């Protein structure tokens, strides 16, 4: 128990205290040296939020849109290869798996700036489709790994059974494989969402200002002298994903309970 308290105290100091600073900053009117707790509080940052709610909502919506778009595209990209890697062995498989991790190991800048040139030619630069495509190429390794691990946790008998009963491969995917893959899919989607939602540079490069993003919206504020507003908006980066995870977790739990799977 003493050990647990010690570790927890260390974790709070390392990982939670910086957040407390953000919260205090968000509600303080000014935080002058050497106050450890700000001397006065006001709701200026909340008023800012109210005044600019349309811009903020638009940028948040756009960020969520391309982040969920990226989840869908990475799923489409990796579902068949994941099954292949989990269920079959073929010549050059490990080499191919290594090669497919390359985009995770090379700095994204190195290919994104060249890709921008191609996107211009294809006419998808400055579009949300282009943003989704570049984010997918950066984040698919997480989805691929999660889905491959998901397929490895159950045998192919479930699918064979469904096929034997006359289900098409499409129907088998929808009714058998995706429900069984759900935990792995959520694990992969969580990381893909976080990577896409947090990204600043790639969205800025490929979206070129015409695709609004939350990270692009708050960036100029981070360097402004008003730390209060910037702190409040930074907290949204934490609150929104955690709310999503919580909601999805509850939804899945209820769906499983309904079918008696838990």
């Amino acid at each position: 128990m003493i050990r647990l308290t010690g570790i927890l105290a260390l974790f709070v100091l390392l990982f939670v205290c910086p957040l407390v600073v953000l919260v205090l900053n968000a509600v303080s009117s000014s935080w002058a040296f050497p106050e450890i707790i700000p001397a006065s509080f006001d709701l200026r940052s909340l008023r800012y939020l109210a005044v600019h709610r349309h811009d903020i909502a638009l940028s948040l919506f756009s960020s969520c849109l391309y982040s969920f778009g990226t989840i869908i595209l990475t799923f489409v990209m990796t579902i068949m290869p994941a099954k292949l890697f989990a269920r079959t062995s073929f010549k050059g498989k490990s080499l191919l798996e290594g090669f497919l991790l390359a985009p995770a190991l090379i700095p994204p800048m190195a290919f994104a700036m060249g890709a921008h040139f191609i996107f211009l030619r294809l006419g998808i630069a400055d579009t949300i489709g282009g943003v989704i495509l570049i984010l997918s190429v950066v984040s698919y390794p997480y989805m691929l790994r999660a889905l491959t691990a998901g397929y490895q946790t159950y045998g192919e008998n479930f699918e064979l059974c469904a096929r034997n009963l006359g289900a098409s491969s499409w129907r088998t995917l929808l009714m058998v494989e995706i429900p069984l893959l759900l935990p792995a899919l959520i694990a992969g989607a969580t990381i893909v969402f976080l990577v896409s939602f947090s990204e600043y540079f790639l969205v800025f490069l490929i979206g070129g200002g015409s695709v609004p993003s939350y990270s692009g919206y708050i960036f100029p504020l981070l360097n402004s002298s008003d730390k209060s507003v910037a702190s409040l908006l930074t907290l949204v980066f934490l609150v929104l994903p955690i709310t999503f995870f919580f909601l999805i977790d509850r939804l899945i739990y209820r769906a499983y309970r309904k079918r008696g799977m838990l």
Partner: protein
Amino acid sequence: MRRTQLTLRLLPLLLPILVVFGCGLTITVLQSFGLLMFSYTYDDLFFAYRELFADSWFLRSAAFSLYVALASSSLSIVLGTALAYAIWKLPVRQRHFTIIYKIPLVLPHIAVGFLAVVLLAKTGIVSAIAYHLALIDSFEHFPDLLYTPSGIDLISAYIYKETPFVMVMVYAMLVRFDRRQIDTARMLWAGGMRIFFSLILPFIMPAINTTFIILFIFTFGGFDLPFVLGDSFPGMLSIRIYDYFFQKDIALRPVAMAMLTLIFGFSLIFIAIYLRLSARLAREVRKL
């Protein structure tokens, strides 16, 4: 399975990678030689590379990026491994309390950079705490931590962001460790240090190696965090690349592409050397 069927199933993945990653890299390399540069033509293929090495700023920026990447990745690895080991040693029922360590995983890099500014500024929170502990008399005595060649702001921000990542990776490896080995070691009178360095560490080394490669290259070529933490001299390479790509004359874009090409080449060489070294180390450990 037939070859065509195999390819067909991999196609949804291979096609985007080929177009975006493969062609993207190719364009980067070509443009670094002044080819495919819209309407610009260059007499000298190596114009951009000559430009880079003509001045010392490029090498100084590269050295700074290398230093920040090495310092932050190795410190994150040490801290993350120690904390993951500490969690693993807890009784199973108590472990779920420690989930708060995942907070920095959710925070974007730009948010972590902002946090570093708030905490480390001369009149920031750390400075205020130091004042109350009577370590300094006024904020003027607090050392410059932001925007300096020491890179402390960048390194500490990266450590905050990357330590939980190391913990996730190392912990995932630790749960596969057979605890009975520890009981055996205890019976043979091995101490806590001995158990960690002779039993646990070799076991989790593969996870540490992969994580180190990922973190090192990510930090070396990372853009978001240095961009928030402002420009300093010599500054990270990624900021120099951004300057050449966006702000200077478009005719100078090959210089940005040349830096990216060198970063790409360096990443490949780094991965190759690191993997070879760690394989050799592992062999030598086994011989003992």
